[in-house]
């Protein structure tokens, strides 16, 4: 299963269309498979990011706020979207892998800040 996280510095990007960087992770249901891949986007924009998500065959997107059109598009494409996530991307990834992440989760790292 392939997970994509929209990233800004060390946190999940507050808005899907404002992400400048993404991290792609693969896991077999229990643990990570291979290394994390960091992809730097040449410019901000939901369109290019959506293309990348489809092209990469992503199964799960972890992001902050996302436009409804894109949310619908991904769910129509059978891509799970966890939106409204606030906190560090490493924490969000761990929770996504363990199956405990839910949309709107405010992660402990965000509360500490």
């Amino acid at each position, binding site marked *: 299963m392939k997970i994509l996280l929209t990233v800004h510095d060390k946190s999940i990007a507050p808005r899907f269309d404002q992400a*400048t960087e993404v991290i792609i992770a693969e896991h077999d249901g229990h643990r990570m498979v291979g290394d994390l891949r960091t*992809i730097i986007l*040449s410019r901000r924009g939901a369109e290019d990011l959506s293309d990348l998500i489809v092209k990469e065959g992503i199964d799960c997107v972890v992001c902050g706020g996302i436009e409804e059109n894109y949310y619908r598009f991904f769910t129509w494409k059978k891509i799970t979207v966890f939106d409204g996530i606030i906190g560090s991307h490493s924490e969000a990834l761990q929770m996504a892998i363990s199956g405990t992440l839910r949309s709107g989760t405010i992660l402990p790292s965000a509360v500490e800040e």
Partner: protein
Amino acid sequence: MVWASRQEVTVVFLGILIFPVCHASNTLVLPMQKIKVLIISEEPEFTDILTDRLRSWGFTANAAGGGDEAMSMVTQSRPDVVILSLRSGHGHDLDTLSMIKNLDATIEVILLTCKGTAIAGMKGIEQGAFDCMHQPIELGVLIEKIRRAHAQRSVPYIKGFGVPLFPSILACEQVPELLSSLFA
């Protein structure tokens, strides 16, 4: 057919002797040296992130917006590797590549292409760019290319041959004849 003068043959032969030493010293010295990378792009956010990420991986990374600023930075800092972003509809972006190569042919240039710049990327390869990558770029792949470009830059060049010494020796089918003429 004699294709090289005796002096050139001597230089090639000395290169054979020197290459293993250079190669060995690179493997010993390079991990302690910071590879100098210059990113040339008109997208400040992109250059900021890439510069930051490359620095965190141990590179000495700087960014320039393009044109004169880029060339003055190349002249001043003499980077090992330049990452040059090509823009659609800006054919003159390749002029920067030509200027860098004219200034110092050993500086390796990696081109970043996007929609509409694939042809420019191919032209760039013909003009001496090390490689081109389509955007968005994967950081791990770019880092690997930068390291390979730097390793290629470290291979000794002979003026007049225009190609790295070691491959030029391998490409020559007349090495035995050349060596025998050297000692004749």
